[in-house]
């Protein structure tokens, strides 16, 4: 898909979720109702995507919602640069996923409308140099950002995005947050999660299910 086409689609779709729920809600909530009419996309943004300032491996400052999530297809995961355990296998798996995403959904889309974001679990350690080194070591493709920020912000983000264990003791074990991916299509309001060590083709398949309607073929099953 060309960038131009994608932008048109984003514009069209971006408008739709804001308009339809308003109509539904306006019909349903009478005057004087205690309930507010808020589009579901906005509720999702407010609930999960705080517009925090984050820093990329290039040293750029970005806003989480405005710059990274809005109007995009995204994959989230957690890591830290000096991780001895599962970080590297998951990152290597995601490198394969990124390549396959390019092969299946279009190479020109990586960094255009499809992005991968890896959030640091140890923001105090993970400065720009550490992120840059990690990204280069794994030879990641375009549209994959490694992100750090204020420790409180990164912790809030982790919790908002559901990289948590309900057992507070297990929650302290960072490896419990690294094995999970979340992915979604922000304007289409389609979200999901899957294990980070899932086979790359399975992850690509899952992401294809939240792709734009012009790729709706992915919503048809197969002979398998």
């Amino acid at each position: 898909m060309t960038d131009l086409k994608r932008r048109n689609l984003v514009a069209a779709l971006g408008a739709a979720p804001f308009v339809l729920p308003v109509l539904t809600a306006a019909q349903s909530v009478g005057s004087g109702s205690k309930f507010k009419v808020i589009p579901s996309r906005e509720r999702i943004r407010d609930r999960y995507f705080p517009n925090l300032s984050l820093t990329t491996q290039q040293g750029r400052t970005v806003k989480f919602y405005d710059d990274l999530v809005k109007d995009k297809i995204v994959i989230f995961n957690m890591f830290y640069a000096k991780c001895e355990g599962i970080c590297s296998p998951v990152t290597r798996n995601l490198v394969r996923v990124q390549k396959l995403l390019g092969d299946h959904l279009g190479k020109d889309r990586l960094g255009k409308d499809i992005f991968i974001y890896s959030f640091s679990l140890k923001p105090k350690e993970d400065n720009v140099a550490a992120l840059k080194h990690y990204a280069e070591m794994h030879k990641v493709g375009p549209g994959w950002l490694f992100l750090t920020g204020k420790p409180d912000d990164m912790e809030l983000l982790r919790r908002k995005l559901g990289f948590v264990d309900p057992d507070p003791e297990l929650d302290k074990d960072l490896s419990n947050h690294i094995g999970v991916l979340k992915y979604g299509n922000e304007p289409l309001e389609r979200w999901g999660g899957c294990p980070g060590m899932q086979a790359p083709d399975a992850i690509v398949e899952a992401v294809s299910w939240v792709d734009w309607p012009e790729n709706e073929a992915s919503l048809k099953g197969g002979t398998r």
Partner: protein
Amino acid sequence: MVYISKRNRRREKDKEIAANNRRELIAAGFKRRDLLKMGLLTSAGMLIPKKGLSARPLTSAGFVDDDEPNSPPTTPFQELMPRLQVLAPVASLTPAPTIAPNTAAGEGRTVAHQAFAQFPPQRFYEMTQQQGTALMAPAGELPPQTIWGFNGITPGPMIVERYGNLGSPGNGSILVRQRNNLPTVNGGFGLPSVTTHLHNGHTPLESDGFPCFFIAPGQFYDYHYPNVYAGINSTHPGSGDIKEAMHSLWYHDHRIDHTAENTYKGLAGTYILFNEFDTGDENTGFRLPSFGDGQNPLTSFDIYMVFNDKVFDNQTGLLKFDLFNTDGILGDKFLVNGKIQPVLHVSPRRYRFRWLNTGPSRFYQLFVLGPNNSTKSFWQISVDGNLLEKPVQVTSSRFSVAERVDVIVDFTGQAGKTFYLENRLEQDDGRGPDGDVVGAGQGDKILKIIVDGPVVPDNSIDPATIPANQAVYFYGFPNTNDAPRITRTFRFERGNGQWQVNGQLVGSCNAAPRFAIKRNTVERWIFQNNSGGWQHPIHMHFEEFQTLSINGQAPASTGLITRGRKDVFRLEHNMEAKVYFRFRDFVGRFPLHCHNVVHEDHAMMVLGVIDDVGDNKTQP
């Protein structure tokens, strides 16, 4: 970081204190009114603090706060409990159903029907999965909800069918055409790509609703349900084994990775099978309370009740689904047949209630609460829709997600009294209940039952009159003596924050089947849960199992009954169970999975196959 972790510690401490307080209050004999007065109980009967959406709901300030009641308040026991609509068959389908997938006409099926010629469909049904509007609370308390439903309603319409009589098995065969007319714009959650599982029909597997056999908007899928007893083409040719009869089933979306949001949004319905023994007429066969037309309160005493729990956004009042939860989602509003805490009026006689929990993640232990906090006993007649050997008198039934329990509650002589279905099983997060069962009147009252209906004849069997020494009143259970071809072990666990079975993830829809069962053989499976923190309702499609042992002990036939043919095994803390399966008659793809639908959507599933070869993988 420091701030948050301090907060976490404080939160954990608060939780502990709250739990202790609650136990002390109950032990001290405080009544509901006292607790209400003290501000410790909500009008819905919830003890505060009580978690809502999940283990990590967020306040509007963006903090994770376990103790925030999430949904707007609603007034309980105002609305009538709807009786589920019965779906009428259609005279014919256009285009006519075909054995091979009718791809040209827009059918999304990819596998030919394997038993269509043997059991040609005798009746046809058609449903469209589409957006609809539902009022779940008294008028004005919550706005109309946008749902996805079969024919636009939730629960979906009930299919009421009959097995063919013994000797003419083909008469029960039906075909259901499912159309996907869901919108691309989902209003916040839901994937408009669907596959419909009939839980737990003995169904040729291309019609079972395999998670990867999904269809896109605009497509349709023909499901062929022969409604035959297992054994029809193997151990009991020509009739099937009557001891494999199933009576309370349900259908629901099973879209891989997206089942939780799609069923939460409404894609679930019920399915009843009668036969010449469980006839639906209390004057014949087992004489269970009459089904009638399913609507008329003067003639319909067999009532399906679909339970689920939901959360509503406290700003918009609209249904809220926690998109990034992987543990399990708990609602703080309890619905029966689509209404929050409704009311049912009954006559002073016996009723058959069919209880189904559609989740997403809550376990129930239901009691019938009577006047002055008395607990009324009742008769449990089935597990997972399969009749026990005879009715068993119990004071409660426990069922996790997807389990069904049929009961007979006797309101004879109770005219003028009020009862409640009360869930006394405590559960604070998606991990499962912690095992605490609160006292009478201290749980969540889900349904109010008022015995103010007219006196009507009752010709149904009074289970109390079945002689104590009569071992079998219904069918009895099939034997478990045939030697298994193989014993397989399935370990349900968590690793690196992700769900696993035997250390593996579900994998791609395109991957080769993880293991192969040989058709017409017996297998023994061992289900293991080594965790003290999590519980998992484990569901196997296509065949019912019988439990051989639980932690080395024989399954219970009294109390919380675990004996009988089941399709969901409630795998509780640190539990190991041995179960016995016969895989008969049909072939194809199936899933084995956790039915906490949030776990299911996060890879706690194994995709296998039944074929004529099988394999010898003992830990697939």
